[in-house]
């Protein structure tokens, strides 16, 4: 007689998640209250910062007589959730790929008598939690500030968590379907397909931005109101009635105005669409998952052609390192560039940022006043800094952890462990300098900023490149995770989150010291000219900034070095 057909319900997987979470929490408590406290405090700091900024923003809009419950704010909320949806499709799909096709757990479950769609559902929940963690951390304070500014009632705060829970379902399911489809239909070309999707997204973004700027070209609009209407018209696609992101924004607005029936209607629509999309993705998984896994392994052993790539020349530009360290650096460059999952999203941001700066050059200098240009220049520095901060947290922080699996190789080389860490930092510094400094230069030239500020911004960029790289590499060695092999999961863990928060704090501090005094003095003057004594403020502040950068480089690297030397593998 054969064994009966089992029916492992979803409850089994829920219990599995709960038990894992319980043991992780116990393990965390076992590591001492300092770690727990630092998680709570650092997450709290980010949330409070985002909350205060959002509160100030909404207060400003109210002072401008802009109704917070009105259509313009509604449109902004729609845009916000639409952008988040796009990011969730991308990150959900990418994280799910690792969980479905490159994980021991998935192979274990697939060898058990469990239907494929349940394995998919289990992995989907895990990847959803990882991909939407940042969304919750940023959106929660923003929406709290919105509710407080608008004087929302209890309904708003009651429904907000439900909207949060349901909103990511549809985009993440879409990401899952795309991921399953790519592997099922293009197993040998999935890298190219991913690059094609990235290029398409970039092109779509460029066309959209270009069209928007064309609407605002000099002389195209007779008044500010007309220009505003043009801008609103250009982003109105985010308010399409079929988009779940629109239902989220609209439902929350109704809830904030205590409009019970429409708020629940939008919540119900979100629930239906989210669960329907999830069921669809699970059904697609029942058809394509195992076939995709099979086709993925069929991809053959095509001869790999070593080609010359400019990026591989970069390690030779680093002074003061030996051949062994240079080889390690080259290995990092090669593994980085051969995995578009790692750099795809960042490339989208970089290209869009470059296009935005080039548009400034063509559109604005003749049209806008000094104060506005001054503010834009400072904002651009912050944006580039935040991109560096996110990139370092996502790509550099996990590098030391990822070496854990290969420690039998590295650990036996005559290379001190300190050199591993230095190599990671050098890798990061090269990439940061290569992308950030030209971008900053382009931004300042586009805005027609004076040479002194250009130099100050280049100095700030350099300090950011070194400081953020050292923070990510050093803290990656202080809080390594040698058990996890997915870099995205390492980056969103305890150490990764803390490193990101410290990076943001460093960014604020550095920009505040190096660039902000110049911008404040130039802004107060109204024309960019300030008296000579202004330099008595700017110069010491910039020196203090350099001191802060020195600390950001030396302290984490020193701590990382100590921990790495004591580490047992």
């Amino acid at each position, binding site marked *: *007689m*054969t*064994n*009966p*057909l*089992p*029916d*492992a319900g979803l409850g*089994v997987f829920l*219990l*599995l998640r709960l*038990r*894992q979470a319980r*043991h*992780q929490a116990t*393990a965390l408590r076992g590591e001492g209250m300092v770690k727990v406290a630092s998680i709570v405090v650092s997450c709290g700091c980010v949330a409070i910062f985002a909350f205060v900024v959002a509160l100030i923003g909404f207060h400003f809009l109210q002072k401008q007589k802009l109704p917070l419950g009105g259509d313009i704010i509604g449109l902004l909320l729609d845009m916000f959730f639409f952008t988040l949806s796009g990011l969730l499709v991308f990150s959900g799909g990418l994280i799910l790929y690792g969980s479905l096709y490159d994980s*021991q*757990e998935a*192979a*274990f*479950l*697939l*060898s*058990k*008598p*469990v*239907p494929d769609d349940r394995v998919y559902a289990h992995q989907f929940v895990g990847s959803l939690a990882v991909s939407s963690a940042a969304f919750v951390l940023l959106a929660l304070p923003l929406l709290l500030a919105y509710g407080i500014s608008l004087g929302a009632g209890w309904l708003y705060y009651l429904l907000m968590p439900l909207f949060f829970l349901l909103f990511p379902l549809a985009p993440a399911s879409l990401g899952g379907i795309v991921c399953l489809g790519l592997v099922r239909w293009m197993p040998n070309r999935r890298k190219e397909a991913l690059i094609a999707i990235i290029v398409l997204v970039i092109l779509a973004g460029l066309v959209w931005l270009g069209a928007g700027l064309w609407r605002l070209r000099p002389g195209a609009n007779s008044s500010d109101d007309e220009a505003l209407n043009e801008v609103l018209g250009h982003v109105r696609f985010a308010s399409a009635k079929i988009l779940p992101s629109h239902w989220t924004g609209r439902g929350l607005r109704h809830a904030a105005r205590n409009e019970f029936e429409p708020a629940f209607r939008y919540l119900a629509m979100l629930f239906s669409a989210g669960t329907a999309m999830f069921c669809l993705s699970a059904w697609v998984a029942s058809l394509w998952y*195992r*076939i995709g*896994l*099979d086709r993925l*392994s*069929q*991809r*053959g*052993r*095509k001869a790999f052609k070593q080609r010359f790539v400019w990026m591989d020349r970069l390690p030779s530009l680093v002074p003061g390192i030996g051949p062994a360290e240079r080889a390690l650096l080259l290995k990092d460059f090669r593994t980085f560039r051969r995995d578009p999952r790692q750099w795809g999203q960042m490339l989208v941001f970089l290209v869009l940022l470059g296009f935005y700066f080039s548009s400034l050059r063509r559109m604005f200098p003749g049209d806008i006043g000094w104060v506005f240009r001054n503010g834009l220049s400072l904002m651009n520095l912050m944006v580039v800094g935040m991109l560096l901060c996110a990139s370092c947290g996502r790509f550099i922080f996990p590098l030391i952890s990822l070496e854990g699996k290969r420690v039998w190789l590295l650990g036996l080389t005559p290379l001190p462990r300190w050199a591993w860490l230095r190599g990671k930092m050098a890798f990061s510094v090269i990439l940061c300098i290569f992308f950030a400094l030209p971008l900053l230069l382009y931004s300042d030239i586009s805005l027609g900023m004076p040479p002194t500020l250009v130099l100050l911004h280049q100095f700030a960029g350099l300090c950011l490149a070194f400081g953020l790289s050292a923070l990510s590499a050093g803290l990656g060695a202080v809080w390594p995770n040698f*058990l996890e092999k997915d870099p995205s999961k390492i980056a969103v863990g305890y150490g990764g989150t803390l490193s990101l928060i410290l990076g943001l704090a460093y960014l604020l501090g550095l920009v505040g010291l190096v660039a902000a005094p110049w911008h404040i003095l130039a802004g107060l003057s109204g024309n960019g000219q300030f008296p000579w004594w202004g330099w008595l403020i700017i110069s010491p502040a910039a020196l203090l900034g350099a001191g802060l950068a020195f600390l950001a480089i030396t302290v984490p690297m020193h701590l990382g070095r100590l921990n790495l030397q004591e580490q047992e593998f």
Partner: protein
Amino acid sequence: MTATEAPFQVQLEGVSRRYGEHWAVRDLSLDLKRGELFAFLGPNGAGKTTTIKMLCGLLRPTAGTIKVCGHDLATDGLAARANLSYVPDLPFLYEHLTGLEFLELVAQLHGLDPERARDRIATVTRQFELEKFRDQITMRYSHGMRQRTVFAAALLHEPKVLVVDEPTVGLDPRSVRQLKDLLRELVATGTTIFLSSHSLDVVQELADRIGIITGGKLIGCGTIEELRSQASHAGHLEDVFLRLTEDGEGDHAGEGA
């Protein structure tokens, strides 16, 4: 013929598997009886792991069919996998579960009712001497503890077929001895075992039949005596294996990797 009347616990008929242009397994046919320990040998890259993955439903054959207890893996995969257990060479455990919780999970995945699950868990816990560490999270387990837990989990639902890949790697002599005793007991109770290993002395000691694969083709299959006769060599299995695989490699030379 229904699944319950299947004469063989494992049937591979004309199974082939291709990776791109490379045939990893070619036209492999095997029938394993109830209570048989079949050892699968071959040099690295011969197609052993591919065969095991196909047998567990993780890969599909490019051609041919695989049946476990009469259930075709391609069309009736759930029923086939319900009768099978797989112990991989690199045992997987959830790092943040205790050994006991892992066993409970596997029992649930196999649909064991709570009472039977409790009984079986108690049995395998005793059998594999897990009492001392089954309440610790598996992250802290040694290789031997992991291997014992994985074996215990694999036998929870009393599978008809057990597929084992390199079970002796990293085990101390006492554990190897216990493993050999276990495999003998399982075979005696009617479990069919498909064992892939490079430990030729273990294979020689335990196997009822031995299959030797190289270049994706089964070049020899039978008892140790039959293989000796095929190799025209009366020595140890190691010599027989080397003689046959050298011949096999010679036969396949020029066919491309």
